[in-house]
């Protein structure tokens, strides 16, 4: 994954590199051109000046020869020489490479020369003048080096500016990201994001706030719906139950009919339980049961096991208790009771007759183990109605309720299958 700014930086860098690379030959051409035309102009000026002076002073041919000799010796590339033709050629520009006699390491130097013609006392002369000019490859090298330096400066600048932008300009974005990470829909608290003076971020924040507000509303509606639906269902369930009780009192019931009637009891009990559990879930989600008190888990376990006595004896289960410490916690007593009842009733229901059921407390962990053949599917274990059980009594909500209660108090619940045992544990 690339950061947005790094990506931009890469693009900028590549583009600047391209432009600068193109700029180097262009600069060389332009500089060379300016240079040469300046030198040509300079040569021309000097030559014109010379011609003018020589003509106006009316030097004799011998004097001209002397000038050529002296000056030609002093000034490299200068010469005035007689020519036989009376046809003057047009002025011509030429370039020559000469050895640098003073610095042999320097190799050859480039000279720009101008050749012209003039007439003095009927004799035609050719005059040349030369000026040293920087070689094109040297210019290229210099410009390339300078460009490289500028390129490096440019990149450093980009990186610095980039960092600044990342630090300052993107700060609101990162804060928004952090708020989103911390956001918990079930808390029901609206998202409040800082105002940003960058239009895009402000727009993003506004959209997020609107989205979250809408979602909270939907979530609350859904919660309210569950709670209301469960409430509404309670009366018909109560009626069904009481009608069934009345029906059973009928004197004229045939055995077959009364058996059908009593077989309604189980699904009715299940319906009632599902409804009760949905209501409980809705209430826990709605942050009810806020009161806290000191709860002794050991004692709660003992009394729950006493309550389940009949069911334990019925299945001839062996209970093995290993309480290493006295575990006390702060929570709502009803919720802890529910948690323990659900854990234990699960273990009892899913045990085969004559099996062993182990309950352990160590430090701040409660473990409930019961024998089992194969591991449960842990992926959806704690989800609502995810149960794969074919039991008629299961509400499919027992573990979901455990999870909800555990979440409420920021405890941890887990399941593992080890040594042919289902192990449910809760870290308080």
């Amino acid at each position, binding site marked *: 994954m690339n950061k947005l700014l790094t990506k931009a930086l890469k693009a900028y860098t590549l583009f600047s590199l391209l432009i600068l690379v193109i700029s180097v030959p262009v600069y060389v051409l332009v500089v060379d051109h300016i240079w040469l035309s300046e030198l040509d102009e300079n040569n021309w000026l000097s030559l014109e000046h010379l011609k003018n002076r020589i003509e106006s002073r009316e030097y004799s041919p011998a004097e001209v020869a002397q000038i050529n000799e002296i000056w030609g010796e002093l000034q490299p590339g200068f010469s005035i020489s007689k020519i036989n033709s009376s046809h003057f050629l047009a002025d011509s520009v030429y370039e020559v490479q000469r050895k640098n006699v003073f610095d042999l390491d320097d190799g050859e130097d480039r000279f720009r020369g101008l050749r012209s013609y003039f007439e003095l006392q009927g004799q035609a002369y050719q005059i040349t003048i030369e000026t040293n000019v920087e070689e094109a490859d040297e210019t290229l090298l210099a410009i390339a080096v300078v460009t490289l330096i500028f390129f490096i400066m440019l990149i450093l600048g980009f990186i610095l500016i980039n960092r600044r932008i990342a630090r300052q300009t993107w700060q609101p974005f990162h804060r928004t990201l952090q708020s989103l990470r911390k956001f918990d829909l079930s808390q029901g608290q609206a998202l409040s994001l800082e105002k940003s003076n960058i239009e895009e971020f402000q727009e993003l924040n506004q959209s997020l706030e609107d989205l979250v507000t809408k979602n909270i509303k939907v979530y609350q509606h859904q919660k309210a719906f569950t709670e209301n639906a469960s409430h509404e269902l309670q009366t018909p369930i*109560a009626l069904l*139950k*009481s009608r069934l009780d*009345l029906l059973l*009192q009928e004197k004229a019931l045939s055995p077959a009919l009364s*058996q059908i009637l*009593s077989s309604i009891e189980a699904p009715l009990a299940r319906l*009632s339980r599902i409804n009760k559990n949905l209501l409980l879930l809705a209430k826990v989600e709605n942050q009810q049961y806020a009161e806290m008190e000191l709860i002794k888990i050991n004692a709660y376990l003992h009394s729950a096991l006493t309550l389940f006595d*009949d069911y334990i004896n019925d299945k001839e289960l062996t209970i093995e208790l290993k309480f290493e410490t006295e575990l006390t916690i702060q929570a709502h007593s009803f919720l802890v009771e529910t948690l323990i009842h659900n854990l234990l009733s699960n273990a009892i229901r899913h045990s085969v007759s004559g099996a062993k059921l182990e309950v352990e407390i160590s430090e701040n962990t409660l473990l409930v183990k019961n024998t089992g053949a194969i591991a449960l599917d842990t992926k959806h274990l704690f989800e609502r109605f995810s149960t794969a059980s074919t039991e008629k009594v299961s509400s499919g909500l027992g573990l979901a309720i455990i999870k909800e209660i555990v979440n409420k108090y920021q405890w941890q619940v887990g399941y593992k299958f080890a040594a042919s045992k289902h192990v449910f544990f809760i870290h308080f």
Partner: protein
Amino acid sequence: MKILIIEDEEELALDIISYLSSEQYRCEWVADYSAAIAKVTSYQYDCVVLDLMLPGGDGLSILKELKKLNKEDGVIILSAKNSLDDKVKGLKLGADDYLAKPFHQAELAARIESVIRRKQFDSNSLITFKELLIDTQAKSVRINEELLNLTKKEFDLLLFFLGNKNRVLSKSALAEHLSGDFADMFENHDFIYAHIKNLKRKLKKKGSDDYIKTIYGTGYRWEV
């Protein structure tokens, strides 16, 4: 014995009346807050069955009103909310018992009987049924003066039967009576069979008649 049922669900109220009618009870029924207030302020009842969610007002206010008037009526709160808060508040305000909906009619009948017994006979906690003498306070049962040794659950079942004479009690009603709220966590209530078998055996051993009849496929009935 007069019983007032304050319940806005007409059908449920009629079911309760229908179930209780053959007992020695005379039932009256009101469906809203103001009618309930009118009734409880003007008359004396042995037991008031009070639904907390009423049109026109909160059931708990009726309870407060009763206590303000120093009425002796026994009160059983019914609540669809099954909320712990209501239960705690109701019992604190002086209600005698609390029953969450949905409930078995037999359970309500037994609770009404228990409330009336506690109110009426005050310190007298004795119930007699033919050769049986039951002390609810000492939790003891005598047959022809001879002490019967029952477990707590057998004793509870015996009282439950006596509160629902000649009624068919389903296994689930019996299980719910013994295990309370979480009986519906389990599918199998076969343990009831063992308890009743033991109870019958013990009663018979001390020379009591066999009042508990098994209704095939359904449950049990205490036959008089």
